């Protein structure tokens, strides 16, 4: 019964039709836009606390998962990400195999999915023996930013694993 009444359920007028490749419904809900002064304050907070993050778009109508899986149209709770990854045949990619367009999943301290981002650049940083990965993601509901994959607010968790839905990966 709780799911029937839940925000984003099929009975929620604010939800849009959205399904995985296996036709399982993805619960979602659209959020009203925040006032310009609220968004400006949000941008100021993010850019002051993370100076290297570069704003792409300032809106609060979708979250990171809506950005990655619903073309920026709606909000999807993080606990639905696993279903989407399974149904849409995402597979894990090792850091060496990552290409722009792949997905980076973040997890919180108890291991739950807390954030997702799309890779925009992935290059070896030979001097520091690491990969230098730039991603794009919606920070909560506070705007969409290009940023280093590890440079996010603690509320969004820590980068965990890369995934891709690419087909014929070895072709």
């Amino acid at each position, binding site marked *: 019964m709780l799911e029937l009444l839940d925000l984003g359920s099929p009975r929620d007028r604010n939800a849009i039709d959205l399904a995985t490749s296996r036709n399982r419904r993805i619960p979602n809900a659209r959020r009203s836009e925040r006032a310009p002064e609220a968004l400006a304050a949000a941008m100021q907070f993010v850019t002051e606390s993370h100076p290297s993050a570069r704003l792409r778009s300032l809106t609060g109508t979708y979250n990171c998962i809506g950005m990655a899986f619903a073309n920026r149209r709606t909000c999807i709770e*993080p*606990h639905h990400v696993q279903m989407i990854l399974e149904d849409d045949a995402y597979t894990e990619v090792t850091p060496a195999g990552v290409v722009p367009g792949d997905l980076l999943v973040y997890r919180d301290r108890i291991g739950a999915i807390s954030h997702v981002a799309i890779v925009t650049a992935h290059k070896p940083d030979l001097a520091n023996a690491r990969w230098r990965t730039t991603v794009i993601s919606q920070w909560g509901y506070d705007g969409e930013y290009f940023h280093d994959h590890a440079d996010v607010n603690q509320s969004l968790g820590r980068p965990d694993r890369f995934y891709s839905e690419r087909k014929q990966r070895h072709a």
Partner: protein
Amino acid sequence: MSPREMMETIEGHQFAAEVNLAAGFDAFHRSIQSHSLFRDLAGLMKDHPAVFKTVLVRLNDLSRKPIRMQYENPYDSAMAAYLMAADGVDPEVAAVAAEAVSKAPNCWWASQVSSGIARAASEASAWDLKLIFGQLDQARTPNVVTQHTAMALSWLQVKLLIYYLQLDLAVYESQYGKIVIPAAILPPPPGPLPPEMENDPVARASTERAREIYALWAARPEGA
């Protein structure tokens, strides 16, 4: 900082910006709970009835404030925080406040906190289980549940009721066929225990039992 100053800060853009950096409701909830301003105000509300009353009055005022309808309610995060704090002090009073907040337009987090309080619906104690009934209002977005009736059942009655409901369902299904639950509305399985409860033997046993019940229930073909 005085309670009044705390509330002014909680109602400001900076607080909203900080707590909106959460991809989902659980993270938002944790973000609020760990925010120093929230903790300070919630502590004062517990210790000083006058502060609790001040916050409730303010919550009621905010829920009635006119807003620019093309935008989200500017007091969304503040109302969510006040409701959560009120729920920590007195859940029954918080349920009344949640009813007021559920009528505030264009809310996001506050709506979810309010629905959560309304849905808590089943208040369990050592003596009984209180069921609170409400009606889904689909004319509002996001949808809200308006509560109207509460009923308390002893645990003996709960056990008997489960038996009789199962019997009624079995009779119905034998007459009209199995009721198929769409996959999209299957309740999720019980989640992991929060770290602070991992060493609590009662919590662990309860979670284990919940998982067993879910496994039995979800494994039935009609639940797939």
